[in-house]
């Protein structure tokens, strides 16, 4: 693709509406993404009807703004109230919330904004230069490779589990079990459905996530009667220093690469990308020992990755017509409604439109950074609101938001049950992240395991004879070997009886 073709997309930007819609898209995306219970997928879905009257280019500038903004916005609530706004910001809460408790919420949001921006920028560049090439690599991924990706994600659970590895693994297995509820993805056999239509599609991971994070955390604060204390926030430091950014560049770059690649693989998406990025930071990062206690490295890595996955997820959509994640599936619907069917034909024949998408995406990254940095102070002031008001407000958003996901009261009950169980698990220092990760990764793992065996007619050797699959399996072994296995056999540190290892929050 020659440079002229990129410029062809610029003509659309003579229309000031492009900037206005993009800006509003990002703003609305950030607000809705940061509200617990309103996922980015839903945000895009509910705003698609608003674009019916707009021209395709303008409406897409708006939708891409929403997409970028919502993925980023999820990190704000993860940092401030330990409720990931979207599943892709689960990993952000690992270090983001401890930072907030140290009174450094502004700084955490600042670093999250900068690394999100860098990650997003990286992925736009990759998308516009190498989309067809990456798409052809992603096409080579069959069921066997998906098994590998799911296993990498699952093994990360073992690395990131603080404290007892057994507890982390139990959480992971509980999540995997929850993921088996519903019509079995291969033979359609109803498992643990108990005759309820709502369970046919399985338990939605979003209400469970809001429950075990949000509701459980609020329960915790009420039970400890802690809700009268407010953590003072230092608001002077928002913009990360050049020194910090320079130090974090290698890790942001690694995470962006991981995010773009995983994003480009259909069905993988931002939640796995940010998790793997956090895992590699825990393994190779400069501050790996302090990760989980509140260091900016732990915010930068997952945030760079999940925003890089937005550009990545657009690659298969633009070049193959295959959505990369649930969000791009909805985006694709928005394009089809406009009479444009994304895919090879659009990519080859409507180059000015395609390049306008690249430019819009870049524009939304810029707006995201501007809004994020100028809003960080306001956002972090939010949690200095009195807890007696904040807690009820969070509760009601969680309740109504979980209803709104599928317009179903069933999910509200799921939320309450998950919240109660999450609270009980916190009492015995279980971390809840593995449960959610297990729920997200489990179906991906099982479906593709069984599909691989169907494709290979029952032969297990297919996993090692395919080179990429073999490479993934070796990666899994390397991740698991070493410290995390040692932790399983190592004697625990001698502790005083009532010494609280209280900071088990991930």
């Amino acid at each position, binding site marked *: 693709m020659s440079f002229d073709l990129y410029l062809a997309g610029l003509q659309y930007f003579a229309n000031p509406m492009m900037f206005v819609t993009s800006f509003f898209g990002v703003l609305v995306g950030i607000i809705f993404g940061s*509200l617990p219970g309103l996922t980015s997928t839903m945000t895009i879905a*509910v705003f698609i009807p608003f674009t019916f009257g707009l021209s395709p280019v303008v409406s897409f500038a708006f939708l891409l703004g929403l997409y970028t903004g919502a993925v980023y916005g999820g990190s704000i609530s993860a940092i401030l109230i330990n409720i990931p706004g979207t599943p892709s910001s689960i990993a952000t809460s690992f270090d983001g919330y401890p930072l907030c408790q140290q009174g450094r919420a502004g700084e955490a949001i600042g670093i999250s904004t900068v690394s999100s921006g860098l990650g997003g920028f990286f992925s736009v560049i990759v998308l516009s230069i190498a989309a067809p090439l990456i798409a052809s690599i992603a096409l080579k991924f069959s069921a066997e490779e998906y098994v590998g990706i799911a296993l990498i994600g699952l093994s990360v659970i073992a690395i990131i589990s603080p404290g*007892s590895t*057994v*507890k982390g*693994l*139990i959480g992971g*297995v*509980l999540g*995997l*079990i929850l993921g*088996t509820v519903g019509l079995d993805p*291969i*033979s359609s*056999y109803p*498992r*643990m459905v108990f005759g309820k239509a709502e369970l046919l599609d399985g338990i939605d991971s979003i209400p469970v996530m809001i429950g075990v994070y949000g*509701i459980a955390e*609020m*329960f915790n604060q*009420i*039970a*400890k*009667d802690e*809700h*009268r204390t407010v953590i003072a926030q230092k608001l002077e430091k928002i913009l990360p220093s050049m020194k910090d950014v320079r130090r974090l560049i290698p890790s942001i770059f690694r995470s962006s690469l991981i995010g773009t690649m995983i994003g480009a693989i259909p069905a993988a998406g931002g939640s796995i990308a940010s998790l793997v990025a956090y895992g590699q930071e825990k393994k190779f990062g400069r501050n790996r020992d302090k990760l989980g206690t509140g260091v900016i490295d732990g915010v930068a890595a997952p945030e760079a990755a999940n925003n890089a996955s937005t550009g990545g997820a657009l690659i298969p959509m633009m070049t193959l017509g295959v959505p990369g994640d649930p969000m791009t599936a909805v985006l694709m619907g928005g394009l089809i409604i406009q009479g444009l069917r994304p895919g090879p034909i659009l990519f080859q024949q409507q180059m000015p439109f395609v390049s306008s998408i690249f430019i819009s995406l870049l524009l939304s990254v810029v707006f995201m950074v501007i809004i994020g940095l100028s809003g960080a102070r306001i956002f972090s002031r939010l949690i200095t609101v009195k807890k*007696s*008001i904040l*807690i*009820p*407000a969070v*509760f*009601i*958003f969680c*309740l*109504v938001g979980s*209803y*709104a996901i599928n*317009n179903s*009261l069933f999910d*509200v*009950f799921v939320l*309450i049950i998950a919240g*109660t169980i999450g609270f009980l*698990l916190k*009492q*015995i220092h*279980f971390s809840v992240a593995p449960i959610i990760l297990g729920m997200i990764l489990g179906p991906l793992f*099982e479906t593709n*395991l*069984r599909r691989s*065996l*169907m494709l290979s007619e*029952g032969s297990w050797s297919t996993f090692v004879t395919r080179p990429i699959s073999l490479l993934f399996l070796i990666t899994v072994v390397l991740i698991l070997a070493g410290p995390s296995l040692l932790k399983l056999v190592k004697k*625990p540190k*001698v*502790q*005083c*009886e*009532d010494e609280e290892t209280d900071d088990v929050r991930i």
Partner: protein
Amino acid sequence: MNKKELAAGVVFLILAAVLFTYTTTIPVREGQPAALGAGFYPRLLSIILGILSLLQIKAAVKVTPVPEDCPPPEKKVNFFKTKGALNLLFTLILLILYPFVLQFLGFASAAFLFLVVMIFILTADAKKHLPMIFGLAVILTVVMYVIFKIILRIPFPSGILI
């Protein structure tokens, strides 16, 4: 020995046993690899969970030596008699009631009621000022109404009020 940890281990072990029993009811199709059946994977998970819960129980019953330089244990207050526990109980009841009230009264009225009661419970006794609580609840309800009903057009069950 830690009672809470032990209880958790036992609960997980029971869960694993129940799941294992359940998977035996899932039919297996003749002449295909076991891994292709619908029951294989959940059964595998139940076995793993069983093993892990045994490890958990083992860790829980093990007596860990307490280091000498421990501070003397603080006087423990019975949690169930604290204010926190009472508030938690109220909260839980409110949460369980909410979906039913939502169906009966409608989304906005249910949210308003929930907020009033919840803020009332959590506000310290000295600061309980009813008009202020009502005002806050109304503001929050209006915000919720605008976001969910007007902007997002979420179809809530229609109750007798709004």
